[in-house]
């Protein structure tokens, strides 16, 4: 900021607040929906504040799995995701490190041989 312009600062905050609100809106709504019972969400309009089924819903999906759909328990999926998220970057990085050293070295070898 090179000069004081209170109006422009106000506009900047307004734009950022609106932008952040729109960006966060779907995540907030999904969180709110996760704390209500199925019947509550099916109401039109659905409630906009968190409800009291938080523990019940999360316990159900984490340990028991969803009551409709695939019925797979989320704890197992979290474990699978964790394994993927650890193995993939570690594997990628170790392979890249291996290939980085010889290629830079062979490149310098080429440079030496080409310069005589």
């Amino acid at each position, binding site marked *: 900021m090179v000069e004081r312009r209170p109006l422009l600062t106000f506009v900047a905050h307004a734009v950022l607040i609106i932008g952040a609100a729109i960006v966060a809106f779907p995540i907030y709504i999904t969180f709110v929906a996760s704390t209500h019972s199925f019947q509550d969400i099916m109401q039109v309009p659905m409630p906009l504040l968190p409800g009291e089924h938080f523990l019940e819903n999360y316990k159900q999906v984490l340990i028991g799995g969803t009551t409709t759909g695939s019925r797979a328990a989320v704890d197992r999926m979290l474990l699978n995701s964790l394994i993927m998220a650890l193995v993939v970057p570690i594997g990628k990085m170790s392979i890249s490190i291996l290939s980085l050293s010889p290629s830079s*070295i*062979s490149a310098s070898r080429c440079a030496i041989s080409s310069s005589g």
Partner: protein
Amino acid sequence: MEKRVVFRSAWLPYVLLAPQLAITVVFFFWPASQAVWYSFQLQDAFGLASQFVGFENFRALFRDPHYLQSFKTTAVFSIAVSASGIVVSLLLATMADRVVRGALVYKTVLIWPYAVAAAVAGVLWAFIFAPSIGIVTYLLKGFGIDWNWIIKGDQAMLLIIIASVWKQISYNFLFFLAGLQSIPKSLIEAAAIDGAGPARRFWTIVIPLLSPTTFFLLVVNIVYAFFETFGVVDATTQGGPAQATQILVYKVYHDGVKSADIGGSSAQSVILMIIVIALTAVQFRFIERKVQY
């Protein structure tokens, strides 16, 4: 004279390079050459036999009105996603670069969607835009808009554009913010002393100096809209209604996996491969030379 390490052994560099080369061959060159090979073949209905047909698959594709329509859909979709994603995130980044108080909160919230998978982003937006029960659908009804993306093609298109832009805003925002912060303060200050207001400084200094960033983001966003939005489409519209949202990459999947037309699907993926090679070539060519401003 810089110090150089030279391997005495002739074979060690190749051994160290081998894993990377093996992975590139197995996971890229092999499938890619298979796709090229299959694109010249025609399978029977049960996938038991195939015969070589040359460019017949490609000829059939370009005679197929659905395929040409899919090209148009993809063009509309990727232009809308790239343009609105870049404009919105440039606006937000310019504002975030200006404010001091609460900057961390804004940045954190705006970077959130980057941590959300494409398919999940699709589900989130489909949920709040759901016909009859979605919260936004309810609000739109108040304005007299009948929102039902399951039967209306243009609304389905709008839904996947919104979900894709939402997910990509974070990435663009980060790059624009970094670009804005790397503009020398002395230039801005000199212009301010000369009497240039914020708008004029933005158009004559910030925009030109950001053009390399913008060009890079344009290419990345087009590639994103072409290829990485599969999850959004599959989780929401699945190409429907009436193929209104069937982008090229979704059509490859639909024709190859659901309709079992391996030859036609491979021909489509070869065309997509040519497009992405062209985009990458353009990017490398211009990034090397720097954008002119």
